């Protein structure tokens, strides 16, 4: 099975207010179609790791590979392109553009990528919304829908460019158990049916247990 994401000897320091070694020699891989969760106590560095893996944080030591290509030390323009094309994001707080409609929110990353025509993008977006059972919300303003719905819209947005991997930073952390279960089911379905790789940081043990693999972190290190 091909490797989607690989981290080699990643070290990270916080320099302010005092020198602090956050991540200590992190090594792991995510294979294609794998559903991986990262668990650990608050402050153990799991979110920090996720932001490095997402290419948004470039201030680290070590090497990061996406689809077997070295990502470390690439310029910011290229990293933006990578995030756009290969990485889908789901955050704890839904982070939709509140002034845009649901459909526009979903379409935005694809418009940025500009590989398809407007019509194709709109069809794709509707398809993703339908798959997540929220196609009836398409024309609503993003600020007018409920939290669970917002999170599903965020997932649809993460999927729009058919990324290599989806990353989640506590995607269920702000949802009630019903919606959390819903989101998990969606992820599981994506992993099983579409062979999508998923990497999710979570506090929720029930959630983590159901994933293919759990990476346990403690004090900036991966526990085996």
């Amino acid at each position: 099975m091909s490797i989607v994401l690989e981290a080699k000897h990643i070290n990270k320091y916080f320099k302010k207010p005092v020198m602090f070694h956050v991540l200590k020699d992190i090594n792991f891989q995510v294979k294609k179609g794998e559903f991986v969760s990262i668990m650990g106590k608050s402050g153990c560095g799991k979110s920090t790791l996720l932001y490095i893996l997402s290419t948004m944080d470039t201030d680290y030591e070590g090497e990061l590979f996406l689809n077997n290509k070295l990502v470390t030390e690439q310029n910011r323009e290229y990293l933006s392109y990578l995030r756009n094309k290969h990485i889908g994001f789901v955050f704890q707080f839904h982070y939709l553009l509140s002034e845009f409609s649901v459909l526009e929110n979903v379409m935005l990353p694809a418009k940025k990528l500009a590989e398809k025509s407007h019509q194709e993008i709109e069809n794709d977006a509707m398809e993703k919304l339908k798959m997540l059972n929220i196609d009836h919300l398409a024309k609503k303003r993003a600020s007018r829908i409920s939290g669970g719905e917002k999170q599903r819209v965020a997932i649809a947005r993460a999927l729009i460019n058919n990324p290599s991997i989806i990353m989640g930073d506590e995607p269920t952390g702000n949802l009630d158990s019903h919606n959390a279960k819903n989101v998990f089911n969606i992820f599981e379905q994506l992993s099983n049916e579409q062979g999508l790789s998923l990497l999710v940081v979570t506090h929720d043990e029930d959630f983590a247990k159901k994933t293919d693999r759990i990476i346990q972190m403690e004090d900036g290190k991966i526990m085996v």
Partner: protein
Amino acid sequence: MANWSVILNIAKTHLLTKIKQTSTAALGVTFGIGAYITLVCFMTGLNGMLDDLILNQTPHIHVYNEIEPSKKQPISIYDNVNNSFNIVHSIKPKLSQKKIHNALPIIKYLEDNTDVRGALPQIKTQIFYIAGSIELGGNLTGINAIDEAIFFNMGDYIVEGSAEALQNTDNGILLGIGIAKKMSLKVGDRVQISPINGGIFPLRIVGFYQSGIADLDAIQSFTNIKTVQRILGKANNYITDINVKLFDIEQAVSLSKKIEQQFGLSAIDIKTANAQFETGTTIRNLITYAVSITLLIVAGFGIYNILNMLIYEKMNDIAILKATGFSGKDVQLIFMSQAMIIGFVGGVLGLFIGYGLVSLIDTIPFQTEALPTVETYPINMNPLFFVIGFSFAMFSTFLAGYLPSKKAKKIDPVKIIRGQ
């Protein structure tokens, strides 16, 4: 990889959802540009009018024969007293003629010069207007009326009658309006004048002249050159003054020096004659531009403020855009285009408002004794001002948008996402 349709779409949505702030910012630009257009058109119109008041009537070079004492008194030519100390009391001007010697060939010579638009002969003389037993002192100037109308806008100052009527009427006179009032004369009446050396000549009034300067209008009248020559009993080569109009006023100084040297005449150029006048124009222009630029800078700060606030409000949006693959440059372009849209809309509206106000001012009556031909406030609607105004709107909004958008570009999405 700028994707303009997406960027402009986001910018548009941001602007439309914050329509109140957007319109406030745009109105700032609108008023700035509108005020600039109004001010600059009005002020330069006024300046132009004041300039014309002097420049139109004033020759660029005035050539005449100055009555003055000899620069070298005969005693200093005499070798025998070369090393002695001599004092000449009570020096008198040298006896010479008022007329310009060889005036007609000089005029022809000047007109052949490519810098010269026209060289017009004049005869200036003192006369008395005779009203019954009263004699009023005055000046009579012999002119080629139609040429004066062409080169020195004589027509603007003829309030009744016309330059053609003067040219075509033998023994006609264009009477100063002040004299006409004093003597209760109408066009078509006859006025008797008497030159200093005696005799009485009746002249028919073909029109009235009003320069706007009351003292001048009370003494000055015009007639044909031939009529003056006849009154004075002089030959038809008797010319006392030559007024030269140039294509380029900047040539006046050098040409006047050349004329003085070449013909031994006095030649006064317009810059020397009206030095204080140019200073006034420069300072008025300076004030106009200082006020206009201040207005536009204030508008620029308004935009800066609003964009800064907008960026603070949109921190989350910026983070999410960056997380989903928009580069820092894209984000900067989004905010830059918002600034430019505000500048464009505000600027265009400002041009319209400026145009409207200027057109309105142009219709307001402005009547003054001093300016017989002016009926409404003078306006100089130069398209260049509109171009400058619009460019400045775009330029100032560019600057006002640049700094906040640069900040947006640098925002680290990780900090914002973690901060929640």
